[in-house]
């Protein structure tokens, strides 16, 4: 009799669990930096499953940001399950236009949930917010910082502990840092700013420092032709063409890190995502600083956000919310930041003991955080691919001397206006 009862109870529990286990969360995520990060993500998912029996989490690694977006959208179109995804923060307008995502505000309704949405750095929410609603929850986020070679600074007679604070200082210091060999060829440049791949992103920093953002908050107007924006591009071009402290032409994003660690440039602008890699390969002491100011400091944010897809059941949405809250909790955010070099996404993450200890031992880890107060969202508009390429092409045409910055940017603005007219 007892055994029958036991079996019946077990069956009942089994049934209940089976009912819960119906909630399965599939999510696609990209990895854009080095390291065995799929294992880290799988570990987080397993940890979450243990704490929340009945919810299954299936993370699917989907390549780089472009691949992840294509795969997630293809899966949705084909009716494959995908409840959430980490996608490029600037994909937001595209995803809204495709009508595949809903704002997190729709599911995060309790007071605690609302406080959670407010817990992130405002700078990181700017790319995820549309018409006042949060569509993107920050996860793997980065920003641009300046790396400098302290040995080179010493050699040039500069204070090795002090990075340039503004454009004038950067030009002057870079001038002193240029080193030429006996035959007059440059063996070390003063500064390098990459201009392939993510030229628009680097340029946003220049523009912001000169007081301008490149697009409006509704993503339907660009600001490429403002005189201060043109002046910003002129400054970037002058670093190579006039001051001769940077190579002329474009600087390759992919090899810049090696150029810096091999001592071929004394300063570089690069993503915080490279911090761990530079730390591992630089054979000289190096510093990390905020980007220099013109009218003000400034740097765009970048990276990936969590999006919630529209085609989901209420149970799935609830489970997805719980999972994303788990993934963005201060402890995990601190852990993720140390594993990758991405920034901690909330002030609470930087207050955790482990990130505090890490920052005490390695101060560059918190430069990105301190720069947040000057941050601007990454360039993102409707028709974002084309609008961004217009700017990329204009920048490269200017840096290679084929067009004047003013002509190039004005032409890009005219084209962007044509593309965005119907969204206003």
């Amino acid at each position: 009799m007892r055994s029958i009862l036991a079996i019946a109870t077990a069956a009942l529990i089994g049934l209940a669990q089976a009912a819960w286990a119906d909630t399965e969360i599939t999510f696609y995520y990209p990895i854009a930096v080095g390291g065995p990060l799929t294992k880290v993500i799988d570990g987080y998912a397993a940890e979450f499953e243990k704490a929340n029996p009945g919810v299954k989490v299936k993370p699917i690694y989907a390549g780089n940001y472009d691949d992840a977006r294509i795969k997630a959208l293809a899966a949705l179109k084909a009716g494959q399950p995908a409840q959430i995804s980490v996608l490029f923060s600037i994909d937001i307008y595209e995803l809204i236009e495709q009508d595949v995502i809903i704002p997190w505000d729709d599911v995060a309704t309790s007071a605690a949930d609302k406080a959670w949405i407010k817990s992130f750095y405002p700078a990181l929410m700017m790319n995820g917010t549309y018409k006042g609603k949060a569509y993107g929850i920050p996860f793997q986020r980065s920003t641009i910082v300046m790396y400098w070679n302290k040995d080179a600074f010493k050699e040039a007679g500069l204070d090795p502990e002090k990075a340039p604070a503004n454009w004038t200082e950067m030009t002057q210091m870079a001038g002193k840092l240029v080193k030429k060999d006996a035959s007059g060829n440059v063996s070390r440049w003063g500064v390098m700013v990459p201009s392939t791949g993510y030229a628009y992103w680097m340029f946003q920093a220049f523009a912001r420092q000169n007081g301008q953002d490149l697009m409006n908050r509704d993503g339907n107007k660009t600001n490429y032709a403002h005189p201060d924006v043109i002046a910003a591009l002129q400054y970037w071009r002058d670093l190579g063409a006039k001051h001769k402290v940077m190579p002329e032409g474009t600087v390759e994003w992919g090899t810049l890190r090696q150029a810096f660690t091999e001592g071929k440039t004394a300063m570089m602008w690069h993503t915080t995502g490279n911090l761990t890699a530079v730390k591992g390969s630089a054979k000289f002491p190096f510093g990390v600083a905020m980007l220099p100011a013109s009218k003000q400091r400034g740097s765009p944010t970048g990276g990936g956000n969590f999006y919630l897809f529209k085609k989901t059941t209420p149970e799935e949405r609830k489970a997805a919310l719980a999972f994303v809250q788990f993934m963005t909790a201060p402890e995990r955010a601190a852990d993720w930041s140390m594993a990758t070099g991405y920034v901690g996404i909330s002030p609470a993450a930087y207050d955790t003991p482990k990130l505090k200890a890490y920052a005490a031992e390695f101060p560059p880890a918190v430069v990105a955080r301190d720069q947040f107060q000057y941050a601007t969202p990454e360039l993102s508009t409707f028709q974002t691919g084309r609008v961004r390429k217009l700017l990329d092409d204009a920048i490269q045409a200017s840096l290679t001397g084929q067009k004047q910055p003013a002509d190039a940017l004005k032409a890009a603005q005219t084209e962007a206006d044509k593309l965005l007219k119907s969204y206003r």
Partner: protein
Amino acid sequence: MRNVYGWLLLTPAAILLIGFTHYPAVATLIDSFFSTGTVVRPSRFVGLANYALLADDPIFWQVLRNNLAFAAGTIPTSIALALLMAIWVNDKLPARALVRMSYFTPTILPMVAVANLWLFFYTPQIGLIDKVAAVFGMPSHNWLGDPSTVMACLAVMTVWKEAGFFMIFYLAALQSLSPELEEAAKIEGASRWYYFRRVTFPLLMPTTLFVLVNATINSFKLVDHLFILTKGGPDNASNLLLYYIYQVAFSFFETSYASTLTVVLLALLAAMAIVQFQLIEKRVHYR
């Protein structure tokens, strides 16, 4: 009954061909007459509007010019080099197998690996080319960052990669040539150059045609290296037609316009193949 059996044998190949070649080609053509649909604005028939857009697109004309320059830069050079290498390794020379293999090695490497390799050849200052140039006191050059050199850099790399592959075909053809021809030419007192010009080269024409068709297709088809080396930059100076199609389709999400570009690419390749087979075939056979 016999027919049924034949058709059954053809079915597997036919399904694959139709499913993955013919149907996509036709679907692409149809898509090029429609606008790109979003949830808000469904796709609709627009006739030739996409083609009008294409005619007005300066980047399209630029990538087309780039592609023609790329073809002109890579095809003759790689064929000439392949022929030269084949004749060289067809002779009896010490360590012949080793030389043959080393010429062939670039071919077996994946294009993406090759591009990563060459990225570090071309990188200013720390790259191989600049390091060697520095020994001779030559200034560093920003090879891939300069619109006037980037295309040549890509062409050199492609020739390096492809010539070994074409060499194999020439080598096979050379070995099938009857040795009596050479003996007869020697008895007649023909010079080596005369023998090559009047006997070897004409006999190699079928191989040349084959290689030419392949080289032409490759010059429009190979874009893997752009992802690594330049992403089409600076300012589209190294952008090629197929890479532009990729950008339009997967970065701009303009699937209809990408279809339109694809139709143009297909038409171009088909036209070139027809011209090559029609014109050159007349001069190919020597029986």
